[in-house]
């Protein structure tokens, strides 16, 4: 495997309901793919499938190890920022959390319980976790939610560095990140058209 994400004729479901069908794409190292589509189009479903959280109904997903970033950051309110990050780093066999803290400007918050962070600070902690996974492919679901403009730019910088280092990313986002990326409209792959059940006609 050369670190390329290959998806072939993928069909995936959410909670047993088929959402997407016939998705095929390739994503080379160093490239980013932005998923677009209206709410409910299946962006999250596709990301969870790429991350291996939901097994595909059909087709195949092959690629490098994935760091998944969902709507929730998975941080424990009772642990400090540094403790949270250190836990995920250790789980992924990464020793040093300092670069991840620095990348998202979290050094001064390192000893604060994660439960006392603002929404934006919490999101930055969640994004910093991506760096301590050491994984080449990021699958991110609305990563810029609750970030202010300056922090979105900071995230874009981190993302650019990740791509420059040979990493790749699939990102569901409505925000223009200012990072050169391919765009995929997920709505094209809807598995079944929304059915208007007219009852007993």
């Amino acid at each position: 495997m050369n670190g390329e994400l290959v998806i072939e004729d993928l069909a995936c479901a959410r909670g047993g309901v088929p959402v997407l069908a016939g998705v095929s794409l390739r994503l080379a190292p160093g490239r980013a793919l932005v998923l677009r589509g209206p709410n409910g189009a299946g962006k999250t479903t596709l990301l969870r499938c790429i991350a291996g959280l939901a097994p595909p109904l059909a087709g195949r997903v092959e690629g490098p190890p994935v760091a998944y970033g969902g709507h929730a950051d998975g941080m424990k309110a009772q642990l400090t920022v540094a403790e949270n990050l250190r836990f995920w780093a250790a789980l992924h066999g990464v020793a040093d959390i300092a670069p991840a803290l620095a990348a998202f400007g979290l050094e001064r918050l390192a000893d604060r319980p994660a439960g006392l962070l603002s929404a934006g600070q919490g999101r930055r902690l969640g994004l910093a976790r991506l760096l301590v996974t050491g994984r080449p492919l990021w699958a991110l679901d609305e990563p810029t939610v609750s970030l202010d403009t300056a922090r979105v730019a900071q995230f874009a910088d981190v993302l650019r560095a990740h791509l420059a280092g040979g990493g790749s990313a699939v990102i569901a986002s409505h925000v223009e990140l200012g990072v050169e990326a391919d765009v995929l409209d997920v709505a094209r792959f809807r598995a079944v058209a929304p059915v208007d059940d007219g009852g007993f006609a």
Partner: protein
Amino acid sequence: MIRLFRRDVALAFRAGGGFGLALGFFLIVAVLVPFGVGHDTALLARIAPGVLWLGALLACLLSLDRLFALDREDGALDLLATAPIPLEGVVIAKAAAHWVVTGLPLVLAAPVLGVMLSLPWPAFPWLVASLALGTPALSFIGAFGAALIVGVKRGGLLLSLLVLPLYIPTLIFGAEVVHRGAAGQAVSTPLALLAAVSLGAVALLPFAAAAALRVNLR
């Protein structure tokens, strides 16, 4: 896995983590029983093994619904599922942490409560031994139940209904060890069976629990 185990134990000791909750519950149940049945020492001594084991069982159940539900709510379960440890390992680490935080204090506190329920002296070592051997089964069976209900809101009651019947063998053999210990009879048979239930639960249920989690994550 050790990291996850240590994180869960640390979380239990932090504010709102629930450490001591099960222990407090166990203490109160054991204190309430003499009030309920009256101060008949002979009767108390006879029912003490059953009461102590029932108390331990229910105390164990208290914190089980949080085992995976909290991680599910804050998204950590998704991240653990994509981490480089298998889900089976996640289950083992979390169930082991649950045992250390819940089961182990019960084992240590049981002799004190034995005194309160006028448990005969010869039964004390067997009370501790039976709880030490049996409570791991409670944590691992409970982890399986918790994995099944992880997607259910307010699943605590459902969890009790699922898990309590599965606790029956542990309860029977555990209480039997203490009964026989109190009567001065040989305890090796129920003790061996109790250990067998625990070993079986520890060996097999992480796979079942991980399968249940995978289904619930979809």
